[in-house]
């Protein structure tokens, strides 16, 4: 079946004219019709627009355009609901945006279009990317394709669910504290968070601007490399976009792990890791060793402060970023007698509970009298966490860790305890604070129920090429990435 192909599998069939982009798009729409009632990954789909984009790709293919020049030509890709794509809605899974439609294409979206992608559906997320389960979506949660009673992770849970349910050939998400890697781990797909500054954030609704980064969720590492290459590069519209060359990530794949030094951070291997996750992780480390990697224990002494640091920095930035949702220029407005009550009513009604919680926390840590004690101290803690990474990378090429301490949890399990929900991000958060890159890929399954387990590699800043090589070598030596959820 067409929807079962990987992205690279599809492009080779498109190139040989064995299938058309319209066939591929129709296969996704049929698959969505068949399974999305259970998975609930998609918020909205413009079918006519999707098929006309596919027809345009077919016309380009007929004219002789190739996947060398346009590596995504004719490939249906879904978008997390926070990317601005001209004419499409961008609700961020929030009520406050009403029937907002983007007036322009963001840079990542434009680059994907230039590479020939068919950008066809808006997938679910935690409201404004705040959450780890999609349960904070104002439009209902998505379900994990491996067990529908469980969450797909978050905040890019719709991305991961749509890839794992084979409803698209790749999906684009964002990662602020693990929001690509954690759902990828829980749904059994590959999720890459590039280095801060690698992919432009222009046209991406901001949550925490010093942490947010755009990245792909895919069925395998090669597809991840393809999508990263298409989106990366300097953008004058984003002053934090770094002007550095974009390697050919796909061409640089291959090879083994001989001579690669992998660091095992001892502070990550804490009590409280699920035994099946721990066993799968230990086996993955052995596998890397068998493939030629040297394993070195390293120390990251400030790891335990990561979550606290993150929840100060991220909420502070969120409180400033989300000030723009005031009911004046776009989105839903709840009237008031004066501008002040209009703001309060609009935001009180429009934002969900987690978003309110984080804006209020962020407002507090920045408020007069508390700034030094919370925000400034967290910025200093962040420096210490970054130094942990710099010191580790003096002796190793990459770090190897579990992505999440446990497999997917049941819906509702952590909703009344936000702190427990935050702690599920413990292994992914420090990468964002340090601004470096990370990838999660499948490394096994739990028994009863069968749920995916994720392995994380963390790489040096702008070291995506080596990170992808390491992940690819592990992936190709193991069977995990070929397993699919039975829906």
């Amino acid at each position: 079946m067409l929807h079962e192909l990987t992205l690279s599998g599809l492009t080779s069939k498109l190139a040989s004219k064995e299938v058309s982009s319209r066939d591929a798009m129709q296969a996704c729409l049929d698959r969505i019709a068949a399974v999305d009632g259970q998975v609930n990954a998609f918020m909205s789909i413009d079918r006519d627009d999707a098929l006309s984009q596919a027809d345009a790709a077919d016309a380009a293919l007929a004219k002789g355009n190739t996947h060398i020049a346009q590596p995504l030509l004719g490939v249906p890709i879904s978008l997390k609901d926070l990317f601005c794509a001209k004419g499409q809605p961008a609700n961020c899974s929030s009520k406050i945006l009403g029937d907002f439609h983007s007036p322009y294409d963001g840079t990542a979206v434009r680059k994907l279009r230039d590479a020939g992608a068919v950008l066809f559906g808006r997938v679910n997320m935690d409201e404004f990317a705040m959450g780890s389960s999609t349960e904070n979506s104002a439009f209902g949660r998505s379900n994990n394709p491996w067990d529908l009673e469980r969450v797909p992770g978050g905040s890019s849970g719709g991305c991961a669910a749509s890839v794992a349910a084979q409803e698209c050939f790749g999906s684009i998400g964002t990662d602020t504290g693990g929001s690509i890697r954690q759902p990828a781990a829980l749904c059994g797909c590959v999720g890459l968070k590039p280095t801060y500054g690698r992919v432009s954030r222009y046209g991406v609704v901001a949550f925490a601007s010093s942490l947010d980064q755009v990245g792909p969720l895919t069925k395998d590492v090669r597809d991840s490399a393809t999508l990263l290459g298409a989106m990366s590069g300097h953008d004058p519209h984003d002053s934090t976009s770094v002007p550095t060359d974009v390697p050919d990530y796909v061409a640089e794949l291959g090879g083994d792990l001989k001579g690669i030094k992998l660091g095992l951070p001892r502070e990550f291997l804490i009590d409280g890791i699920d035994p099946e996750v721990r066993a799968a992780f230990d086996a993955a480390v052995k596998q890397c060793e068998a493939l030629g990697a040297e394993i070195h224990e390293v120390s990251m002494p400030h790891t335990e402060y990561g979550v606290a640091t993150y929840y100060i920095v991220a909420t502070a930035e969120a409180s400033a970023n989300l000030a723009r949702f005031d009911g004046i220029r776009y989105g839903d407005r709840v009237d008031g007698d004066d501008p002040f009550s209009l703001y309060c009513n609009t935001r009180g009604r429009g934002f969900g509970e987690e978003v309110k919680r984080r804006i209020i926390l962020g407002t507090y840590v920045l408020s007069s009298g508390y700034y030094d004690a919370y925000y400034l101290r967290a910025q200093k803690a962040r420096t210490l966490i970054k130094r942990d990474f710099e010191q580790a990378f003096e002796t190793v090429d990459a770090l190897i860790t579990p992505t999440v301490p446990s497999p997917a949890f049941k819906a509702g399990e952590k909703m009344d305890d936000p702190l427990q929900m935050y702690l599920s991000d413990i292994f992914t958060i420090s990468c964002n604070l340090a601004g470096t890159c990370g990838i999660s890929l499948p490394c096994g399954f739990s028994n009863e129920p069968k749920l995916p387990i994720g392995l994380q590699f963390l790489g040096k800043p702008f070291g995506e090429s080596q990170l992808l090589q390491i992940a690819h070598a592990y992936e190709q030596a193991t069977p995990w990435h070929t397993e699919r959820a039975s829906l």
Partner: protein
Amino acid sequence: MAETDFDIKYVANLARIALTPDEEAKLGAQLGDILGYIKQLEELDVTDVEPMAHAVPLANVLRADEVRPSIPQEAALANAPKQTNGLFIVPKIVE
């Protein structure tokens, strides 16, 4: 850090978010727990540590101050809850 000082009403007002009494009680209690957890940063010795605002190896990114194309006024106003004559309509600010 004195999380006992945390006054949900005051901070929600600063954040321009109207809360129901139920929300005030629930969020207030949860934020108290979260602030209790965050308090662990007090243990850290941050003497002589420089604060870090972001991880990007760039400073003072500037561009030429010149007029560039933009989206048309119509598109900029298309998502407005209330607009007329090319303007956003807001409640009266000055009596």
